[in-house]
């Protein structure tokens, strides 16, 4: 097959710039800064990678706007799908990664300064390819790139023994799940003889295909932290460096959710198959909501609590996923509602982790909820931002999380419009999800109570220095949450196919 390499180079320019930045960060750190102070090495690596990522982001935005050579299918031989929709996701991932970088610089958790940043960039690159890939193998390899980078990053917290342990668990767990995913993908290939998702033939409801999709659900269920494949999440969230936990909880979730949706699209034309799979998805959704929300109730550690909240939110997400082709407005359907939700959730989750990393890591503490008592007095601005993030996750209007949930449930309601009675359709699932949302308020408000109501008993000054970059990224995330809650149309429009 002939590839026009010049064209290929142009279309992959955003990624190439990031790769160059990645190597530049490593190279400078190894050569010029050998033996320099750790803080200086962090600063340099941060600057180089932030610059590269920003350049990549600008180019990705230009591509998404159609201002820069966007590929036709021929340029990558159909490997990638570059539409407004996928490019928007990629842009969002790059932008979120840009918010992670200053947080990573805050806390000198490891002596591997440049590797830390390089791994973040690698994970970001992988995510970008996952959301744009159109090839089963390509998507899998990209997903592995993400996973491997994240495993390594989890181990970076050198001050804690638990960090290494969590990384090992994560790795083992992930390896097994990847096996399942690859198994599923190979069944899919075996049944259809096609690796390119765009060319998949009409699927029939055979046992082989059902098995393929179930295995895929298991594999991606690990990435999304769906119960019962969630067990790694609390340990990893707690032990990994906080920015890494934030990146695991946001970027990789977006990539996995987007991949799940892409893999599900061919099912839309096969009602039999869809019906079989939808039930499995519903079961996973119920299990996740149950485990996530109930498990979060008794957590005393804020990061673990957020891990369980992530499990619960993945459950809500599946409510939308199983209604992926049902309309919510005249233009958007379940796909958009899922992507909207996962984006909004990721922003809020990353924001929450950002606040935690600013506050807790400086105190050298383990982010117990009680550590945050009386933060309101010391840092009112960040406390308000934190409140916005948590309330958005809980789905309180007018924040974006509310609209996200609203669209998900709207999609699920219209999934079976002809069977809109109480026992059919997904009313029972939505009722369950709403009930669980009420339960979730309890633990979110418990955290906010510590932040905003309880006064600090030991009287220790919680004043922490907050850098300008941290401040910008946190407040920008909070502003986006509020803005999307008030005016969701533009994003919803961008996510359309």
């Amino acid at each position, binding site marked *: 097959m002939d590839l026009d390499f010049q064209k290929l180079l142009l279309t992959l320019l955003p990624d190439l710039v990031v790769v160059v930045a990645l190597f530049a960060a490593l190279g400078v750190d190894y050569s010029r800064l050998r033996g320099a102070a750790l803080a200086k090495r962090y600063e340099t690596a941060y600057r180089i990678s932030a610059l590269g990522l920003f350049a990549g982001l600008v180019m990705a935005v230009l591509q998404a706007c159609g201002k820069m050579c966007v590929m036709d299918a021929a340029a990558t031989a159909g490997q990638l799908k570059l539409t407004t929709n996928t490019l928007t996701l990629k842009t969002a991932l790059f932008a979120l990664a840009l918010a992670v970088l200053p947080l990573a610089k805050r806390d000198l958790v490891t002596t591997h300064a440049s590797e830390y940043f390089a791994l973040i960039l690698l994970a970001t690159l992988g995510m970008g390819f996952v959301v744009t890939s159109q090839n089963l193998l390509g998507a899998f390899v990209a997903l592995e790139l993400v996973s491997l980078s994240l495993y390594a990053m989890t181990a970076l917290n050198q001050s804690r023994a638990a960090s290494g342990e969590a990384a*090992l*668990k994560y790795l*083992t*767990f992930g390896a*097994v*799940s990847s096996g*399942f995913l690859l198994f599923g993908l190979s069944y899919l290939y075996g049944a259809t003889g096609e690796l390119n998702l765009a060319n998949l033939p009409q699927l029939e409801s055979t046992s082989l295909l*059902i*098995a393929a999709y*179930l*295995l895929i*659900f*298991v594999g991606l*269920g*690990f990435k999304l932290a769906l*119960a*019962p*494949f969630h*067990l*790694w999440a*609390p*340990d990893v969230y707690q032990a990994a460096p906080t920015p890494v936990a934030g990146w695991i909880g946001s970027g990789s979730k977006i990539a996995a959710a987007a991949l799940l949706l892409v893999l599900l699209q061919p099912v839309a034309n096969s009602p039999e198959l869809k019906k*079989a*799979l939808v*039930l*499995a998805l519903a*079961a*996973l959704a119920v299990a996740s909501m*149950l*485990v996530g929300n*109930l*498990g*979060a*109730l*008794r957590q005393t550690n804020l990061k673990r609590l957020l891990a369980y909240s992530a499990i619960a939110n993945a459950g809500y997400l599946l409510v939308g996923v199983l209604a992926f082709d049902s309309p919510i*407005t*005249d233009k958007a359907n379940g796909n958009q509602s899922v992507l909207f939700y996962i984006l909004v959730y990721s922003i809020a989750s990353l924001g929450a982790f950002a606040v935690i990393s600013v506050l807790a890591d400086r105190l050298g503490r383990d982010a117990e909820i009680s550590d945050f008592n009386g933060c309101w007095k010391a840092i009112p601005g960040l406390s308000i931002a934190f409140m916005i993030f948590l309330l958005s996750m809980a789905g309180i209007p007018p924040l974006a999380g509310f609209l996200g949930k609203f669209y998900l449930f709207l999609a699920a309601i219209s999934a079976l419009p002809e069977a809109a009675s109480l026992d059919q359709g997904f009313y029972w699932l939505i009722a369950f999800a709403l009930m669980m949302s009420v*339960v979730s308020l309890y633990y979110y408000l418990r955290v906010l109570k510590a932040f905003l109501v309880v006064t600090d008993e030991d009287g220790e000054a919680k004043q922490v220095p907050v850098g300008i970059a941290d401040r910008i990224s946190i407040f920008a995330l909070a502003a986006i949450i509020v803005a999307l809650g008030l*005016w969701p*149309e533009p994003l919803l429009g961008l996510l359309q196919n």
Partner: protein
Amino acid sequence: MTTTTLALIPLLPLLAAAVTSLMRDGKRASIVAIAALLGSCLLSLIAFNEAWAMAANDAPKLFNVPWLELGKTKINFGFVLNPLTGAMAAMVTFVGSLIFIYSAGYMAQDKRMARFFCYLSLFASGMLGVVLANSLILFFMCWEIVGVASYLLISFWNHKPEAAAAGKKAFIVTRIGDIGFLIGILLAFKVSGTLDFYTKGGTGILEQNLTSHMAFGYQAATVISFLLFIGAVGKSGQLPLHVWLPDAMEGPTPVSALIHAATMVAAGVFLVARTYQLFDDGGTLPLVTWVGAITALVAAFIALGQYDLKRILAYSTVSQLGLMMVGIGVAGVSVGMFHLLTHAFFKALLFLGAGSIIHGCHEEQDIRKMGGLAKPMPFTTIAYLCGTAALVAFPFTSGFFSKDEILMGAWANDRGAFWIATLASLLTALYMTRQCMYVFRGTHRGEHAPHESPPIMTVPLLILSVFALGLGALVKNSLMEHLHPFKNPPTEHEMIVIVISVLVALGGIVLGFMIYRGQVLGQAADPLALKPFERKFWFDEIYEATVGQLWTLFIIISEQLNELLVFIRDLAVELASRIGNGFSIGGDRKLIDSLAFDGMCARLRCAGRTVTRPQNGFLPGYLRLIALGTVLLGALVLWTR
């Protein structure tokens, strides 16, 4: 004009409000606020110029932005540009700018000056939103912003109990009207399925014919326009909801000029003009005419008996707003809006002049303690007399032209309203002459020597004077041509109407002059300040005696009812406590507390322990769960197939 530039007109002051809310320094805040409003004034003039190039019946320029989409229903925000909105926006920003500049001088000594300009900017932004809105919902939102801002401004000196009370009164009374307005909006939405005034496809509320729909057994257009009119009555201080407006004079004087002359009170009239098609279709115009006419007359009578400089002007405003309603009712949008525009200029002038007088007399507002101000305050006096001339419709001032149109329309369409309006005009001339005699003639009766105000206050006055005198003749023809045309255009100018209106104006002045010429002002009893006028026809007392008494009655009744209930309760309690004891132990404590709610919560927490049990930290267990999960998932699918 694009969406952005048009949207900037209300957004600039909003931005200024946001910025000034963070500022402490009053002077800087005033500069920010004035600059923002001058900016939107410039944009408004450009927009006005563009709108004026359109013919009367051209389709308006629309800028709709989708805001919310729920299922099939779309709610738009949007702005509309046509001659009506263009002219109104230009007037509001122009008069507003002058008032802002004046305020910078007037409030210079106030500690909370920055806050004052924040509120002023918020108000201006809301008002411009009202003017330019292309949907009822945006109109209503901005209308409410205006309401809140005026509440804040009226009670700005909240250390004075009267000011705080006046703010509350204004808020509550206008809220009564707003309820009607809101119901009207909802009804309009139900009937027409849209909230936009105009749409690109011609399906807006004002473009549909709503007469075929029914609501509550009447034509939908009738009911909707009636409900909207209730909102207009509240905001524009028409009878019987006028009581808040005179009390609102407790606010700083520039506020009175901004809110109670040029902008906010005109919003009600503007609402009627904006939705004129609905009133026309629904046949509610006679109601508008007569409410306006009666308001004009009653308020003019009350103004005769007042001694507070600003209260006289307040009642005069109520009276003039009534005349505008008459104008719209009998002769259409153009006539009512013409008077609205001229009135905005000369009443703003009068209020700012009154502010200058009060300032010069060391915060004295009682006209009995003024007098002889012509000499120490020459500029203010000239400006004030110009405003007075326009208000009493002295020939060839702007008030003369606009009032003449109203009378002409009334003569052609409604003779009853014509005579009432004529009488109100006579009274207008009378009370203004009385006021001027008190204030400017004779010797000063106050304690401190009066002094002229600084140029930052007098210059806006003189600018406004020019407009008060000349605007009418200048814009009359083009206004009539561009706004909604006459309902029933009079075939020719009736000479008799002009003659009557001139006679009434001059007669009132001469009459007032004759009555007060020989009086020793401020000491002897005032011959015209009859008891009913002075006590404002006992409106407050009547409300106190009716609505207030009604509440008292309710209280008494409910107290008696309470007594009865207490008796029954005691009886029932004895009975119930025996049954209840049984239930409380068996039902409440056991069933509800320990089983249902508390039990549920405890169980949820317990369940938390159960579901996290696999989370034991041991990797083999974790991996086993993956396998188990996969098998279960497969079993589920197999089982249901």
